[in-house]
């Protein structure tokens, strides 16, 4: 083992050199948030927490506090996940098991919808939201985001349900359980890895969503972190790039943490199977 590792060191060297720019970029992203650099120099020379002041300072007038925005983002991502997963889990089951009319048509439709670029729908969605009064509200963006992620969710859950042997359900019915109990107590636990993976997936996707909040809830109290970040860079007369980086890191931290915790489940979503 060790000898084969030895022979591959030139390969590692090449890879290391190629990925160096990326690594340097990330390192600077973190370093810059807690240091100051004299103009013209590349090496940071002073430690400071000044760039993180948005966390504790009162926001300027007309600006929203970062904590409100973070809470918004959290509500946005959580509600989107809840709605999306509940709908995917029920619709996926129906498509996998029930003998309903137009099943093939539905399945084909879902795939088509999944392939449909969001951006082409955005104007009509904008008009609809304005008409029903959900423009510039969190609820509006939540509904739209949950709906747009639905085809993928349904498709993934259907795949997981397909792998549950139907005898388990028949055995459940025979044991005297109702259809709902069978689904809730016997089938759902089998697809639990799928539910976990889909939840993480949708949560992260909503957390990093930019276009929808930007267009459908651009200002004021419905802001989320992605729009806050872009406002920061566009609005300011004298842009503070290091603070922009700090907000960026703050915004990315939950994503990184979630990835670290759930990467096993996320792998599962493409495996598409349940074991044990």
């Amino acid at each position, binding site marked *: 083992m060790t000898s084969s590792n030895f022979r591959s060191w030139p390969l590692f060297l090449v890879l290391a050199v190629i990925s160096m720019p990326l690594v340097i970029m990330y390192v600077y992203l973190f370093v810059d948030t807690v240091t100051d650099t004299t103009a013209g120099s590349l090496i940071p020379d002073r430690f400071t927490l000044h760039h993180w002041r948005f966390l504790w300072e009162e926001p300027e007038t007309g600006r929203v506090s970062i904590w409100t925005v973070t809470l918004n983002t959290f509500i946005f991502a959580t509600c989107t996940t809840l709605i999306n997963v509940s709908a995917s889990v029920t619709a996926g089951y129906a498509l996998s098991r029930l003998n309903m009319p137009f099943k093939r048509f539905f399945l084909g439709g879902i795939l088509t919808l999944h392939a449909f670029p969001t951006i082409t729908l955005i104007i009509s969605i904008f008009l609809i939201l304005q008409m029903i009064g959900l423009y510039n509200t969190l609820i509006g963006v939540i509904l739209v985001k949950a709906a747009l992620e639905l085809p993928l969710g349904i498709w993934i859950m259907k795949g997981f349900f397909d792998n549950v042997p139907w005898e388990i359900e028949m*055995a459940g019915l025979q044991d005297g*359980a109702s259809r709902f109990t069978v689904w809730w107590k*016997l089938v759902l636990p089998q697809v639990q890895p799928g539910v976990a993976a889909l939840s993480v997936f949708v949560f992260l996707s909503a957390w990093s969503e930019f276009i929808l909040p930007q267009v459908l809830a651009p200002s004021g109290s419905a802001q989320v972190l992605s729009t806050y970040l872009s406002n920061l860079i566009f609005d300011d007369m004298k842009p503070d790039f290091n603070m922009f980086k700090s907000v960026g890191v703050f915004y990315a931290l939950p994503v990184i943490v979630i990835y670290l915790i759930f990467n096993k489940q996320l792998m599962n979503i493409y495996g598409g199977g349940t074991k044990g």
Partner: protein
Amino acid sequence: MRISIENFTKSFGDTTVIEDMSLEIGDGEMLALLGPSGCGKSTTLFAICGIHRMNAGRLMFGDADVTEVSSQKRNVGVVFQNYALYPHMNVYENIAFPLKVRKESKAEVDRKVQEIAGLVHIGELLQRRPMQLSGGQQQRVALARALIRKPDILLLDEPLANLDAKLRLEMRSEIRRIQLATGITAVLVTHDQVEAMSMCDRIALMDKGQIVQLSTPKDMYESPSSDFVAGFLGNPPIAFLDGTVADGGFRLANSQVTLPVPSGIEVPGEGAPMRFGVRPEFFQPGNPLKVPGKVSFVETQGREELYDVTLENGAVLRSIQSQNAGFKLGQEVSWGIEQDRVLAFGPDGNRL
């Protein structure tokens, strides 16, 4: 509980799988549904437990008409071919599930689970997951789960198909022991004739959605109603000789050999085709009605030896003899058929 199926018909889309089947199963009886793959055994079983709706006909449990009753209310225990244990629950929870669904008290559930676990000998496995069990143990858990709420009827769909030979032998007598101990009415689906014969009181032999014969194993073996039944039962299988009626006897096809017809059967008209079925145990060196041939196959089965003898017209007879008979491949032999045990079948395949 007595089960009676009356004029049962089942079709999937345009294909009719079962047509106008009637079957009566007595209280406490164990009946085998035996037949080749695809003949409709599972379909019949699923109709009894309510997974399939019947397209026509009536199903009675005792005196109650249950044709329209949902599976949850039929009180039928089912053991599926792949056991269908719930993988996310341990053995205890699996067995307790039917009781939990009925919201029985914890103490009650516990008492019943312990009792049934004792009956099927899995008392020490209760905390394991199904994945951690061997095939035979899973089988026992499935049985326990099917039996725990004291069903009126137990249905078993090929319960032994996934087990190895030794375990199959063991579970065969286990299932029968448990069925007798509980006195439950049971239906066993199988395509293995040995299983059907050794475990059940009666066998319903099915072919293409029809019951071709319904009788006790011994009766079905000794007097099959058709050549299909005769060919299905018995291991090693029966050998058939084709021929025609000639001078009141049986003339082998492509041959001048004429054999006498067993006594007491009605011989069809001169020249009509006829079939003789000879079981291996009735083709032995010592019998008087000799037919000459050549040993064309020898198989040693431990205690016994199995020979194929090719007759001069190409037909093959089988013989099973005790070990050390010592016949060699290619040897010319002249062994005898036991005349009164020959099964004669008419042109339509039915027994004469």
